[in-house]
């Protein structure tokens, strides 16, 4: 549990600084420090436990199904990081208190630092690959927020995004690699996986797994060719750089190499890839560092270089190299953190980091200079400092590599060369800044020593460099031992942490490096000139940026090309897909079924031909719109005839009445729609339309043909049999509608109701120009309501209502029903509107349409719900026969009440739509813009 606490403590503590910032910067810092200190102490306790041989661990199931559990374990390697991360963190927090200006949001910085600390601890402590990945990605994300801390600066935003993208991409690769690893091992538990090294190395998926994991590690640790994000990340405030790029973020990559060392290492592929990349990075970073003019840039490249060194060490694939690697992790953390802080102090006090302007600061800030010199010397590998020790071990290990065969000399030579570069840039850091004449137009002059407490972290770190450098075995011995053991997973071969191993080749290499380094530095002006003249190596960051921009441009082009806002294109795509899926399965000889065909008779043939002709006429006339409407209504009429021809009188009734309402709607709309002739611009478009139409038509026709020529065994016999005994009606279609499938009908009236409400909303405040004359420029007829028409409709209305009642009442047993009755009523009422005008009609009687609709649907629903009271399912119908004197026996069915609901809704809906549409022209009209 304590392990979990170790991760949770900073995470929860992260809320403290933002909350306490209102009490002042000091309180905020104290809060952050307290949290960190507690974490550090806890880590120390756990470390001691681990030293005593009982490493703490915990295991909580989370997503156990796929093996993702909350498993944490404090082994040696984890302990190393568990100490480093809060340790350096504590110093960074103190330092940041003085580094940040008044207007920087310190609460956010400290909070984010703590979150970051928590994620980093999580990475170190995870005993589950996926869990580790979770923390891994959180470090990417929190580093994104940290790097972008100065959000107003474009370089900060860009650097942050670049870091996020590169490390995020690496994280995704890592995820894939982890998943593969998990699939190979059958578990995501790291401690279990570590035991399966041989099995995994022999597995066919080893190569992709290794590559993916290495991509993850290399992006995080800024290895070539993914190194470019790190210098850009220097836009962050220096405390953040000091933290992220010395001890934590970038170390996550090498941590991963160390963590999976027992599983993945030990193959040629590992050796060549890891050491190759490490070596390249080592040299490239060191070389580039020399030529940086920005203090932090120099440090950034040196960081890259040192990370390359560590990676190279792990790549060398010997236990002692691994020890050296672990050792260098510690050392690099200490000296690099202090160097960043020193650079920050200089920046803070002088206002610049440009080494061409910073000169001779020794005079102004000797204390800082002394500290920086210690740290820089450690970086250069000067004896008596910790850097020397690990570098010595590194040189020694390069001599023992046998895989290269006759070319074995290359590696030591390259290592020495890197050493030379390291000395050169360290020398430059010191000499250029503190000596080398006088400062040149510094933004802040004269500089002086920073506040006392700002130097304390640097002093502690520099002290550590010295202490470890002089007394390595006493100070870091046990930690290193423990950590390195858990890296290699086996007992380490004997090694000694001592300053003096006698005169040997590594010492010689060190001396060469020192001497060479100073020599290179001495020649720096000539080298700078030479470097300037070198053909510019492609700048990876610029390339990355260009690639990103290109990708976005490409995406925009794609997006723009995809969607031009055209309805037609989307419709064509949908219809095209439909045509394909209909035609492709049917394009075989087996489309005709076995059923014998029914004979064609003359009138039917004629009707069919007329129907087809009317359809084509609609297309032909679509520019002459009124004619097209007429052709359409012929289609409707003939479709109704088809329904009658094939025994569906109910359908014919519905079709006819819906038809006329549709026509009215279209006419109402047509009044407003301007008429223009515009030939279709592209013949290709028309060709496409014709092909598509033919395709869809052919597809549907084939489907219909295939269907009609095959026998059907349907469930309808049940309805035929049950209609009278179960539904109390002889008209099976109506009984299906109100009883067997009454739920569909309820849905259908709901659709109508919603449509009406929506239409009402659309008509609200709709302003359309009212044409003063018809399409040929003729003014409209003067007489709005022809006498003969209005007189006739007065007579027709009662008749129509009678018919409507008739259709309603008999619907259950013969063609008819609530829907058709509703339509007839509505149409008859609309006829009044047409013949007498909206104003007159509404003066006579104003129907409340909205409530009518609501009541209609509610009546239908309530009829259905009434059966719930009796304990039957919704919409269970009941019916009975009632006898009255004179009248005789007649049937009453609950379904009729349901039908009444339908009736009311339909009347309400149609009236609402048509009457309100008709009212459009009565509004006060403003001339609208019509193109």
């Amino acid at each position: 549990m304590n392990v979990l606490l170790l991760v949770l403590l900073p995470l929860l503590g992260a809320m403290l600084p933002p909350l306490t910032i209102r009490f002042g910067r000091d309180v905020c810092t104290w809060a952050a420090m307290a949290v960190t200190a507690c974490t550090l102490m806890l880590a120390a306790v756990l470390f001691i436990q681990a030293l005593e041989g009982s490493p703490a661990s915990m295991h909580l199931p989370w997503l156990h199904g796929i093996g993702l559990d909350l498993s944490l374990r404090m082994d040696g390697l984890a302990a190393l990081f568990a100490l480093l991360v809060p340790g350096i963190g504590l110093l960074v927090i103190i330092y940041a208190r003085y580094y940040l200006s008044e207007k920087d949001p310190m609460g956010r910085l400290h909070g984010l630092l703590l979150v970051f600390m928590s994620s980093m601890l999580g990475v170190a402590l995870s005993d589950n690959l996926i869990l580790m990945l979770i923390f891994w990605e959180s470090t990417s994300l929190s580093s994104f927020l940290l790097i972008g801390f100065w959000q107003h600066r474009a370089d900060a935003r860009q650097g942050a995004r670049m870091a996020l993208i590169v490390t995020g991409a690496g994280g995704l690769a890592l995820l894939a690699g982890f998943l593969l690893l998990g699939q190979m091992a059958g578990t995501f538990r790291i401690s279990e996986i570590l035991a399966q090294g041989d099995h995994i190395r022999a597995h066919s998926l080893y190569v992709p797994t290794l590559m993916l994991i290495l991509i993850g590690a290399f992006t995080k640790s800024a290895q070539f060719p993914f190194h470019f994000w790190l210098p850009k990340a220097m836009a962050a405030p220096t405390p953040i750089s000091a933290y992220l790029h010395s001890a934590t973020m970038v170390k996550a990559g090498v941590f991963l190499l160390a963590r999976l060392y027992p599983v993945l290492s030990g193959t040629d592929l590992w050796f060549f890839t890891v050491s190759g990349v490490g070596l390249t990075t080592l040299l490239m970073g060191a070389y580039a560092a020399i030529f940086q003019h920005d203090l932090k840039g120099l440090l950034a490249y040196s960081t890259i270089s040192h990370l390359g060194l560590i990676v190279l060490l792990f790549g060398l694939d010997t236990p002692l190299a691994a020890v050296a690697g672990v050792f260098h992790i510690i050392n690099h953390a200490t000296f690099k953190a202090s160097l960043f802080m020193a650079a920050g102090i200089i920046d803070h006090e002088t206002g610049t980091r440009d080494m061409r302007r910073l000169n001779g600061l020794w005079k102004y800030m000797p204390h800082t200079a002394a500290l920086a010199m210690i740290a820089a010397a450690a970086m250069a590998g000067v004896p008596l400092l910790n850097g020397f020790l690990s570098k010595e071990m590194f040189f020694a290990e390069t001599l023992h590599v046998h895989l290269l065969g006759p070319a074995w000399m290359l590696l030591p030579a390259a290592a020495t060369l890197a050493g030379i570069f390291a000395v050169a840039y360290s020398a430059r850091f010191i000499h250029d800044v503190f000596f080398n004449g006088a400062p040149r137009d510094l933004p802040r002059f004269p500089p002086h020593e920073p506040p006392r407490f700002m130097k304390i972290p640097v002093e502690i770190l520099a002290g550590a460099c010295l202490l470890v450098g002089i007394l390595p075995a006493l100070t870091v011995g046990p930690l290193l031992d423990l950590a390195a053991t858990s890296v290699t997973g086996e007992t380490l071969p004997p090694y000694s942490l001592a300053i003096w191993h006698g005169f040997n080749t590594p010492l010689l290499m060190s001396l060469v490096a020192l001497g060479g380094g100073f020599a290179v530095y001495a020649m720096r002006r000539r080298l700078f000139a030479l470097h300037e003249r070198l053909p510019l190596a492609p700048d990876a960051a610029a390339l990355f940026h260009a690639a990103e921009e290109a990708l976005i441009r490409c995406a925009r082009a794609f997006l723009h090309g995809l969607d031009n806002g055209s309805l037609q294109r989307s419709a064509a795509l949908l219809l095209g897909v439909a045509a394909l899926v209909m035609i492709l399965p049917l394009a075989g000889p087996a489309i005709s079924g076995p059923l014998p065909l029914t004979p064609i008779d003359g009138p039917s043939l004629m009707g069919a031909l007329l129907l087809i002709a009317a359809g084509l006429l609609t297309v032909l006339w679509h520019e002459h719109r009124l004619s097209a409407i007429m052709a359409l209504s012929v289609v409707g009429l003939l479709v109704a005839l088809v329904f009658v021809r094939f025994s569906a009188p109910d359908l014919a009734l519905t079709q006819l009445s819906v038809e006329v309402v549709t026509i009215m709607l279209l006419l109402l709309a047509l009044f407003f729609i301007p008429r223009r002739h515009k030939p279709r611009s592209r013949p290709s478009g028309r060709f496409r339309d014709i092909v598509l139409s033919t395709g869809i038509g052919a597809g549907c026709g084939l489907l219909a043909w295939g269907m009609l020529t095959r026998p059907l065994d349907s469930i309808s016999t049940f309805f035929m049999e049950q209609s009278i005994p179960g539904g109390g009606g002889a008209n099976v279609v109506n009984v299906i509608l109100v009883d067997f499938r009454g739920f569909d009908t309820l849905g259908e009236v709901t659709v109508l109701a919603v449509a009406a409400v929506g239409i009402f909303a659309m008509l609200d405040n709709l302003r359309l120009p009212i044409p003063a004359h018809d399409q040929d420029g003729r003014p409209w007829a003067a007489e709005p309501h022809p006498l003969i028409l209005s007189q006739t409709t007065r007579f027709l209305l009662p008749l129509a209502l009678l018919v409507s009642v008739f259709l309603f009442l008999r619907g259950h047993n013969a063609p008819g029903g609530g829907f058709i009755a509703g339509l007839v009523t509505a149409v008859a009422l609309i006829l009044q509107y047409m013949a007498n005008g909206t104003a007159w009609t509404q003066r006579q009687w104003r129907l409340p349409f909205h409530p009518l609709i609501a009541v209609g649907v509610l009546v239908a629903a309530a009829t259905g719900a009434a059966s719930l009271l009796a304990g039957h399912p919704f919409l269970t119908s009941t019916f009975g026969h009632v006898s009255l004197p004179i009248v005789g026996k007649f049937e009453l069915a609950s379904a009729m009440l349901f039908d009444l609901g339908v009736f009311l809704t339909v009347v309400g809906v149609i009236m609402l739509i048509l009457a309100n549409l008709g009212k459009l022209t009565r509004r006060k009209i403003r001339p609208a813009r019509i193109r």
Partner: protein
Amino acid sequence: MLSEALISLFLLIGGAFALIGSIGLARLPDLFTRLHGPTKATTLGVGGILIASVLHFSGQEHALSLHELLITLFLFATAPVSAYLIARSALHLRGPDGPKDDS
């Protein structure tokens, strides 16, 4: 047998008149003359067939089946209005000069 003959007669009359009305519609030279065919001949044609139907179903079910008359009533009530409105629209479309004798 007699009833069947009667029904057949009415059917033929009805069919013939309906056809004649439509021939008129197709054949006559201008709208106003065409108007005469459908308003009268077709209406009567439908009437004939409706009477046939009345006879047929009354004979079938041995009870008076008169509801087809209703359709006739409807047609008589509406056909003139339709004709009137169509004529009126044609007059309107012809222009403001008002009705002229057609030539």
